Structure formats: C-alpha cells, structure tokens
C-alpha cells in the first residue's frame, strides 16, 4: 500500500450530503479489472449531463481541478454499498485525501487500506472551508499526517487529524496488513483450535 505522510494541494468541493458509493462509481463499472484503471469511472454519472457530455458545472470538470489531490465533501460521504471500487476510482484519479464531517464506515476502512486518507473535521469547519474556497478556489490545504494536523487556507487555522493510532501507523508506513497479521499466526492458530473444538459445526 502507498504510504500517506503529507499532502498539499488545491481542493475540489464535491457538493451533496449522503454522497453514496453509487455516485462515486455506478455499479455497472464494477466488473472492470483494476489494471484498466478506475479513475475514468469517478463520479461517472453525476459529472455528466444526461446526454453524456462532461458537465462544466460539476466541480471536478472545472479548470484546475485535474491537479487537485484533496476533496472536500459533505456529511456521510461514501455511505451505501461496500464497493471498494469507489476508493479505487478516487485513488486512480489521483485523489490522496478526502476531508468531510463524516464518512460511511465501510468506505472509511476501504480508504485506509488503499493509502487514501479520510479526514474528519467538524461540520462548521468544513462549511467555513467550503465558503472560503467558493471565493478563493486556489486556496491550498495541507494534510500532514506525520504532524497529525490539517492546515487550512486564509484564517481558518490548523486542526488536528483525529484518527485511531493503529490506522494512522498503518497508513503512515504503508504497511501491508496481511503480512503484519501473519506475525500473529501462532496466536491465531491457538485461538482457532479451541474455537473449532468447542464449535465443531464450523469445521464441516
């Protein structure tokens, strides 16, 4: 997994509460091999007009958005389906961090496993950042996980990144979780032997 240490970038604001993973990547694209790249499917339907052309009003289609690596989103971003394709689409598009008031729990975990940092900031700060960016769209945000802080543009200040220590350590080091868990295999096997002995129907 690609480590996340620090990212400084312009920010694209994605509007809408409860932006579910069907909006991030419609289900019909989930058949694709990862090798083909999922970036092409990011926000596929909501960034296009009903005729299929890119909608200039959608923030990701505006000039300068293509180089941004940080998104600002609204409450409950990534709710709904567990599809990890939503995270693949963001990562393959080049997004490295998503800032918002809250995230769907499964999306949040999926993001962490792919080197994409979800950053929870309180709703008032998110709203203030969105208001600021509406007038100063080139404003830069710095997400510094090493320092556990987010530096916002203008006079919006510096805020702590609240993340559990385990997840922070994994993504900061780009740790492969499966390899790490293998180091506990002896304890897993001991536990398993007892569990299967007391619940033999699990072993049929």
């Amino acid at each position, binding site marked *: 997994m690609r480590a996340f240490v620090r990212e400084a970038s312009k920010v694209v604001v994605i*509007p*809408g*509460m*409860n932006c*579910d993973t*069907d*909006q991030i990547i*419609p*289900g*019909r694209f*989930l*058949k694709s091999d*990862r090798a083909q790249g999922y970036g092409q499917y990011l926000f596929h*339907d*909501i960034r296009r007009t*009903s005729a299929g052309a890119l909608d200039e009003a959608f923030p990701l289609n505006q000039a300068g958005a293509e180089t941004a690596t940080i998104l600002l989103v*609204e*409450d*409950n971003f990534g*709710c*709904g*389906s*567990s*599809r*990890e394709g939503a*995270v693949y689409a963001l990562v393959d598009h080049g997004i490295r961090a998503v800032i918002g008031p*809250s*995230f*769907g*729990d*499964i999306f949040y*975990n*999926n993001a962490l*496993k*792919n080197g994409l940092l979800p950053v929870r900031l309180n709703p008032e700060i998110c*709203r203030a950042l969105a208001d600021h960016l509406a007038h100063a769209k080139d404003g830069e945000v710095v997400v510094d996980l090493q320092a556990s802080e987010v530096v916002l543009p203008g006079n919006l200040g510096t805020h702590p990144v609240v993340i*559990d*220590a*385990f997840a922070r*350590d994994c993504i900061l080091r780009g740790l492969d*979780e*499966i390899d790490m*868990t*293998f180091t*506990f*295999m002896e*304890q*897993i096997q001991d*536990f*398993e032997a*007892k*569990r299967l002995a007391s*619940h*033999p*129907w*699990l*072993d*049929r």
Partner: protein
Amino acid sequence: MKAASDAPRTLLGKIWDEHEILRHPSGPSLLYIDRDMIHEGSFHAFADLKARGLKPRRPKQIFGVADHYVPTRGRTAQDAATPAIARMIETFDENMQWGGVRHFSLSDRRQGIVHVVAPEQGITLPGLTLVCSDSHTSTQGALGSIAFGIGQSENAHVLATQTLWQLRPKVMRVTIDGVLAEGVTAKDVMLALIAKIGAAGAGGYAIEFAGSVVRGLSIEGRLTLCNMSIEAAARFGMVAPDETTFAYVRGRHYAPSEQEWEGAVAYWRTLASDEGAFFDREVHLDAAEIAPMVTWGTSPEDAVAIDGLVPDPARFDSVDRRKSAQKSLDYMGLKPGMALQGLALDKVFIGSCTNSRIEDLRSAAAMIKGRKAVIPSIIVPGSTQVREQAEAEGLATLFRDAGFEWRESGCSMCAAINGDVIGPGERCASTSNRNFVGRQGPGARTHLVSPAMAAAAAVTGCLTDIRRNGGGLS
C-alpha cells in the same frame, strides 16, 4: 479467551469478547471470523490472494453464492444480459474451484441472494462473527450474530488469515414497543427509524433492536430490520437470539446437529444483553405511531407516511439539507406539497435482500385480491428455495395469473447490475433498500416501500395506502 468480566455486557460485547484473539496496544481487536460469504463481486480479493501466492486459509469456513450478476430469466451464464456479465458468473465459479470453496452456483437449488441463503442454510448462527463483501451483511445479525459488510482488502485479509482488525463500535439500542397497526411491517419500522435519526444517524454504532415489537417479529421480519441498519449508517444490526431464533435455526444444514443442539442453545441463551448493560445511545419508537411508509427522495432518510406530502426543502434546518432535498426533488420529478398517495408509477419491483423471503411474498400476494397488475411488475424471490416454496404454496400461480412476472432468484433490480434495470425517468415502487440517484438504472426514480405496498401499487398503478379500501380496492 479471557475471563468474563462481572460488568453487565451487551449482546455485541459478549460476542466480541468471545472472538477477540488479542487487542493491539494501539486500540483495535484482532477478531476471529467464523464465516466469510463470497459473491461475484469478490473477484478483487481473489486476485489479491493470487498475486500474493496465497490460497483461502480455511476454505471450510468460506461459502460462495452467485447473486449480484445472475440472470433472472434463466439459470445458465449464457442467459446473462451481456457477455461481460456472463464472464462475472464464470469467474466466480473459477475462483471458488481454485480456492476449494463450497459454493452455490447459478444452477444450484441452494442458490439465492447471499443474505437470504446464509440464514436459510444455517450458515448464519447465533454467536458467530460473519462477514461478506456486501454492505447488507448487517441483515444476518438478526439471528444474534456479529455480521458486517467489508471491502475487498478486508475480504482478502479474512481469506488469508480468518481474522480482521476491528475497532469495537459503540452500541445503539433501538427499542420498539407497542403494537404495529395492520399493514405496517418491519420495512416501515426501518424507514420510520431512518427518517427519525437520519441516514448518518447510526454511523460508528452497532444497532441492537429490542422491545415487544422485535420479540414478536418472525426471523424474516428481523432480517428486514437488520438489513436496513446500514441505511442508517450502522454497519451492524443485531437481535438477541430467543426461542423464535432457535426454532428457525434447528435442523438447517450447517447448524449444530441434534446431538450438539442442547449445548449450543444453552450457550446462545447467555448472549442476550445483560440487565443494566450500558448502551452508548438509546432510541425509542412507538409502534402505534408508525404508518406504511414511502420515500420521496434519493436517500432512505427521505421517508414519510403514505398519507403524507412531499416536504418543502425550504423548511429543512440546514443549508446542506435544503440543497440536497431540492436536488432530490428535481431528480424525482416531484414538487413540495404533492400527495404521495396516488402518484402514478411505471414499474414495480418486489425482491432484494430486504424483502424477498417467503413471508414477504405471502404479504404481497394477500394484497392482490383477484386484481391484475396494471403496470409492469416483477417478483424476484430471494432464493431458489423461497421460489420453490412459493410455487408449492400456490403464490407463484397467483402472481402469474395477476400479470406479475415471476422470475428466478438474485439481486436483480436492487443492485441493477445484472441487466434488470428501470429506464431513465421511470418511476418504480420497490421493496429494495436504496433509492439513490441511478441505483436502479441511470435516471431511474425509486420509491422504497414494503411488499404489501408494492403489490397494491402494482394493481392500482400508483402509490396506494393499503390501509384504505383494502389497498385501493374500490
């Protein structure tokens, strides 16, 4: 396993403690995972294993079932809507064979939607930890297990180690007391709950459902409750196992044998939350206040009673909420103040892991009362066994005679990735769980309802209050 603490514990706490192999100094538990359910969408996890040179570590504890991409008009991959969809079904079979994983292919009599099949086969049991790379895995907590949806990275981790690193969620107890009125179902309870607490309302929580209504519900009804927990952002829904649960589980194929039965039940009886156990949040619903519900927007929280009106976005309390509601109404082609009852529909879908079990089909059948579907209406049973049971009970004949299409089992128009879709701009009354923009097909407009409400809508052609005139029967 560690010594049980004397402090009162919740249902979740007890099962969690029982499965905690160790706790990392930085917080999360390494949980033992008893069962992992696989479907066609799990192919990324298998690709990950292959790239690492690994195989599923405990294939006996993994079960596969084809559901998301399967055709509902035939039982071979060649019946799939497109060659690319057929390939998904074939890849699933290949991966299952490669991994030595027991699986129920398209043509198997045990096939169906994973969250219908797992309880049906006794794969889901009280006290287990069960995962599946599908958000509606919360469904299976209805039997008193910790069951939750995961992504493909976590799925690969389970396949490789039979464990997961997880932070223990907070627990919200939702108590539903009183008596549900005629025509009000578990689906309506969940839509009422989500409307009350919001689509983000239970983020970070497991929901434990309690109260007299929950005790009185069948397993089918409890599965519906837990299924939609995820639509309130709770990754886990749970109901303490009781006599109803034990009677349901007994004799199922992968359940404890008759020789093991008494011991298993004795343990399961200890799982209910202790008197005085701490809940991080308590929510109460009065059953008498719940009406048959319908959604008007593009989030499951956008739900009102069927005799209610489309709300005015200007009256919502936050700017974000006002904007989102207006966008929903534009997408849905609705105006503030419109009555939902009587709204003309184009399609009806009865199916999905929310509402496709035998009880759901009986409830839909009871609304037909000799009438005919006046709009295209399809019924997709949750499993091949449910389909066979419905045929044996005469429900299939009743549906066919009433002009409904009676299909083979699968996720169909809920996930809408097998080729079964609603057309752009078309309005559908659906017993599924998500009314998201484009969920049932690009431009499709979804109104979530119960099976009885969907059946009444099929025979009247519009959203109909089933409490009146026998469901629109004049």
